[in-house]
């Protein structure tokens, strides 16, 4: 029997297993290590994920906060935008309305374009009428048939009418007062989702109402809308008032104009009558003067013959009477000549021979002519006319009469030692003013007003002594007026007078 070993030699399988066990062990260990690392990584990742999730949730939370804040911002911005746009339109509309002075035209200016720009879709305007109650003045966004229906139904809204028209309140879909009971009916009647209704105010209260509304159920009225409609309604109310005032004023003006026209007609007729009377007067004076002059010439002639003693010497008493007749005849003749001159000038029968005249030359030649009486009274005569003064356009003979009359008067009323000045200056481009001043007794304010009237003579010592016709200044005034000039007198009692007149330049 072959010997046997107590120890079995390991088979290749066992060797493999033992090796595998070693590798397995190593692999398991490695795997365990990897797993531990992975677990650690997963743990880390989980922590990161939790962090990210938290951050994500936090960001989402912040987004919610942003949205909530942004909502308010949008709301405020939208309201502001709407207000600004509406104000621009309101300003445009107000300008259009306020420049309209016809009541009906005011309502025509309220058109769909402006209503849309103000942020509304439709509008109605009612005005209070004393006889008919309420009148529909405008229905924007409605057909004519719809407007008729609105007119009928609107008057059946007593609470709304009372709130707006009598209590002057702005009513809208924002309010919930007693008038709100009528709101649903009003909205369905007008086909609106929201509205604002405001009184059209005037000084004496509401004249009507303006209702503006939106069809869109998504348009919400705001306090800003209420303000806007109220401003527009007030503007319309005031424009209506202005239009009425203008109309009243226009009627008053028309009435006034009619009255003025009537009065002007009456005055023209009176003036014509006066002209006729004046012409008759001139004709009468002319005729009478001529009629008087013929016998007067005879009287004067015979008186002169008698006074000269050509028919034999007269007794002293008779001679004295005849001389008086002669002197009074001269006075009468002078009076008649003066009247005739005035009459001729007034009636235009005197033709003015207008020619260029040098005032300085004329004044100097007159000074020579009037030198003796001035010398007698010791009156100084001054000519204050600048050399080179433009010539005037006047009738030489008539202008000399003016100067003689005025300077003659001045000599008469200036006491010895006084001064008479003839001055001339240009007034403007067309006229030259001439003044004859004296340092005489002057004229009272009362008499000054009457001076220049025919036959008026100031009641003073000089006039009492010196006879005169009272026609001199009247004649001067007519001559100046016939030259298209003006005549004026200024005087101060006891200090002298100035007689001024203007004449056209060449």
């Amino acid at each position, binding site marked *: 029997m072959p010997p046997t070993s107590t120890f079995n030699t390991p088979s290749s399988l066992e060797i493999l297993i033992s090796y595998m066990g070693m590798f397995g062990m190593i692999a398991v260990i490695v795997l365990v290590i990897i797993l531990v690392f992975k677990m650690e990584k997963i743990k880390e990742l989980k922590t990161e994920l939790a962090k990210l999730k938290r951050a*994500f*949730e936090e*960001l*989402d939370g912040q*987004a*919610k906060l*942003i*949205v*909530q804040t*942004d*909502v308010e911002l*949008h709301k405020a*911005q*939208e309201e502001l*935008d*709407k207000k*600004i*746009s509406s104000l621009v339109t309101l300003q445009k509309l107000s300008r259009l309305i306020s420049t309209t002075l016809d009541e009906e035209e005011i309502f025509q200016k309220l*058109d*769909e*374009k402006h209503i*849309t*720009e103000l942020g509304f*879709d439709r509008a109605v305007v009612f005005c209070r009428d004393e006889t008919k109650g309420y009148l529909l003045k405008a229905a924007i*966004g409605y057909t004519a048939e719809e407007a008729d229906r609105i007119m009928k139904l609107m008057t059946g809204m007593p609470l709304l009418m009372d709130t707006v028209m009598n209590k002057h309140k702005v009513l809208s879909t924002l309010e919930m007062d007693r008038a709100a009971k009528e709101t649903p009916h009003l909205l369905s009647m007008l086909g609106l989702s929201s509205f604002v209704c405001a009184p059209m105010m005037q000084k004496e209260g509401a004249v009507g109402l303006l209702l503006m509304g939106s*069809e*869109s*159920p*998504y*348009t919400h009225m705001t306090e800003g809308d209420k303000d806007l409609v109220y401003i527009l309604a007030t503007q319309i109310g005031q424009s209506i008032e202005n239009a009425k005032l203008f109309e009243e004023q226009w009627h008053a003006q028309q009435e006034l104009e009619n009255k003025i026209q009537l009065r002007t007609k009456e005055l023209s007729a009176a003036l014509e009558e006066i002209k006729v009377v004046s012409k008759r007067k001139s004709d009468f004076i002319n005729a009478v003067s001529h009629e008087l002059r013929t016998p007067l010439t005879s009287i004067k002639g015979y008186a002169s013959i008698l006074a000269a003693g050509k028919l034999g010497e007269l007794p002293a008493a008779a001679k004295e009477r005849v001389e008086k007749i002669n002197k009074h005849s001269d006075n009468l003749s002078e009076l008649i000549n003066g009247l005739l001159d005035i009459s001729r000038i007034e009636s235009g029968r005197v033709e003015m021979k207008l020619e260029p005249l040098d005032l300085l030359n004329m004044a100097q030649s007159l000074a020579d002519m009037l030198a003796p009486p001035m010398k007698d009274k010791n009156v100084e005569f001054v000519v204050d006319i600048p050399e080179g003064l433009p010539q005037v356009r006047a009738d030489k003979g008539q202008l000399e009469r003016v100067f003689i009359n005025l300077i003659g008067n001045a000599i008469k009323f200036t006491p010895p030692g006084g001064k008479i000045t003839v001055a001339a200056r240009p007034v403007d481009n067309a006229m030259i003013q001439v003044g004859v001043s004296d340092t005489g007794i002057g004229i009272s304010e009362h008499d000054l007003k009457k001076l220049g009237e025919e036959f008026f003579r100031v009641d003073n010592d000089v006039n009492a002594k010196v006879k005169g016709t009272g026609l001199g200044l009247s004649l001067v005034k007519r001559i100046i007026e016939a030259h298209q000039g003006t005549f004026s007198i200024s005087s101060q009692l006891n200090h002298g007078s100035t007689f001024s007149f203007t004449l056209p330049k060449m």
Partner: protein
Amino acid sequence: MSTLIGVGFSEKKDPFLAASEAAKMALYQIHHRPITVAFLFSTIHFAHQRLLEGIYYALGHIKLLGCTGSSVIWPEAINKYGVGLMLISMDHVTFGQAHSVGIKTKGARQIGEEFARQALKNLSTPQRDLALIFCDGIVENGSDLLKGIKDILGLSFPIFGASAADNFRFHQTYQYFDKELLTDGVAGLIFSGENIFGMGVRHGWKPLGRPHTITGVKGNVIKTIEEKPAVTIYEEYFGKSRKEIEKTLIEMSIYYPLGLYVPGETEYLLRNVLRIDEDGGLVCQGDASVGSEVRLMMGTKEWALNAATQAAQEAKDSLKDKEVKGALVFESISRNKLLGRLTERELSRIKKVLGNVPILGICSYGEQAPLKSLEHYGETYFHNETLAILAIGESHAADKHI
């Protein structure tokens, strides 16, 4: 013959006189040349048969399309009241006009299909390049109408257009189709010939807060977001109760629409919310799909103005080397509201890019335009709060004739 475009505008009270005035102004600008097509836009105040009578009285028989808008955009201003008319005189382009009404009874998708079929029939040529549509903006799901049109014309066919508006009244809008005044429908045309159109579509709104996932949709109603009633997104972000949100939802949604992430696009697709349904779902003007990422969006005036520049640039760039002869501009009424008094700056930005060319458009309730306008093969979507510009370029064929 080169392309001539004229734009007339009037604020006259009488629709007939306003139309005549705008027509004469536009006709003068195209030197009384034959009118290829006319686009008429007016504010709701003028939505009247007399308006169309005025146009036809002044211009005789012409091909006309258009609709009402909350404002009329023309080169001088953006007016809340008025009538604008664009007259185009050009060769090398043919088109098929069509209209279809009865969205409320037949459904928007069927009306879209009817319109597309009829327009193709009237086009009388197999080649087609662009559809231009004007549809009723009161329709709740604007995307459905587009789906109908795309069912017939194909998903990638470019469609450009606007949803008629009535200044937030949401009562009735109108579409103009030749002498007909339509409502509750769509009017438009399909152009064929040399491609002379360039489109630019931008809004400028940016996402705010974390992304959410839409988990339930029914047509144009986003029912649930992350398994919660969709309105929760507004409740949470605004910190207001559902009742409070309901009161101001339209306004909130204008400033903070929902944005749907569209892979590959730089901007989110915006959705205005019209109302909240009984389950707290958000009824949107356009559709959305389950699984889409939705964000609350936020806009600022500056971002909106920058977007105007980008949209105009996009439109101009897509014309490539063609000279811009004019443009149709459809601006969301929401942008108009956001920009407030700065709204005309948007017009200035557009003009700065396009130059002093005739521009006409409206402030609309929705805009239809392809997302990838540059490539011109993108699918058309319904947009909200967006500025969509269709630049009309000079035809190369016309250049050769000169």
